[in-house]
């Protein structure tokens, strides 16, 4: 017999009075939150040394559910806020968890420049191919041909390949998983958290409510089955070759893992030089 319980082992990291959370049945965001909490649990990260920042959107709610210092910024501004936190207090682990629309549309410039400067933060970008919270509009990651409320005849715009953007802008760690790869995702988050510099993980997640039902996957389970049948792991591949296209396999894996001095390192170095003079 299964046993009835009232508390979950991850409740210690959650604002448990807010659970059940607001996300739709089968929404991938709960899996991302769970994977993140298990990663900090396994790494035994001190919650006093962890800050989670998010922007606006369904993903933006993640920060509010985690029982640590968390901040829900204005639309697109999670990364500049996180940059300030990290520079003011380099002891902190600073993580941005936000959606594709927030990070790559209105927040796109912040993303590329934080990667370019190699700010020592981890960005988890949840990509569900549309603006879920506001009713399923087209965004910069909507695949070519996909139907959304603002592209009823199919999207005519070429989407960003987020991992390629991150790599080209200079991120030291780049990986992509779907929410079905929950265990690999958790392990990847652990790696990214331990990595010095700008690390980026793209998580492909189902949004059955506003995206899936307009794209022949009305049930979250349809999308999860699609991930099972059509994703292939290709570690180390050039992210430029990992575009996301309708009807094609989803390439996942760890694409980039390099070392480079961080912005904090450069600031310290500069301070030493200036003091010598």
């Amino acid at each position, binding site marked *: 017999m299964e046993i009835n319980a009232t508390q*979950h*082992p991850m409740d210690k990291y959650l604002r448990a009075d807010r659970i059940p959370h607001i996300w739709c049945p*089968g929404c991938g965001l709960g899996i991302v939150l769970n994977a993140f909490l298990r990663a900090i649990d396994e790494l035994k990260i001190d919650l006093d040394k962890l800050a989670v920042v998010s922007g606006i959107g369904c993903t933006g709610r993640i920060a509010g559910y985690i029982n640590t210092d968390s901040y829900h910024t204005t639309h697109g501004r999670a990364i500049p806020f996180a940059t300030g936190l990290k520079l003011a207090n380099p002891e902190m682990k600073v993580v941005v968890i936000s959606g594709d629309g927030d990070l790559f549309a209105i927040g796109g410039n912040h993303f590329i420049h934080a990667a370019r400067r190699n700010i020592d933060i981890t960005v988890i970008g949840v990509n569900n191919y549309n603006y879920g919270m506001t009713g399923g509009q087209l965004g910069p990651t909507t695949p070519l041909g996909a139907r959304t409320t603002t592209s009823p005849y199919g999207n005519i715009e070429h989407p960003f390949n987020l991992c390629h953007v991150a790599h080209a802008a200079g991120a030291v760690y780049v990986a992509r998983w779907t929410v079905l790869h929950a265990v690999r995702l958790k392990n990847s988050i652990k790696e990214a958290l331990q990595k010095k510099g700008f690390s980026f993980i793209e998580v492909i997640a189902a949004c059955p409510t506003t995206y899936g039902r307009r794209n022949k996957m009305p049930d979250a389970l349809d999308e999860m089955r699609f991930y099972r049948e059509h994703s292939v792991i290709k570690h180390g591949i050039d992210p430029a070759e990992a575009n996301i296209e309708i009807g094609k396999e989803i390439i996942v894996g760890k694409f980039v893992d390099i070392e480079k001095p961080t912005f904090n390192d450069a600031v310290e170095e500069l301070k030493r030089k200036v003091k010598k003079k």
Partner: protein
Amino acid sequence: MTYWVEEKEKNVHGRVYIIKDRCKQCGFCIEFCPQGVLKQSEEFNAKGYHPPKLVETDEKKCMGCGFCQMICPDFAIFVEREEEEDGKK
């Protein structure tokens, strides 16, 4: 397989815990359990969803892999592993 050192094999099972009122009936735990030990129950929770339950036939079939607790988006299911020393197979 026989090794030159005789080792006791541990038999690992899982105990499945369900927080019924958190379940939103996405069906992930049922679909992706590698042992197929979960199914949808008939009962309704507070929000009108049917939470999962264990298939009655084989209580010990759950091997405690923990995939259900990784894939549940709602913090509604978790597993505790139990090890039994069954001796050599």
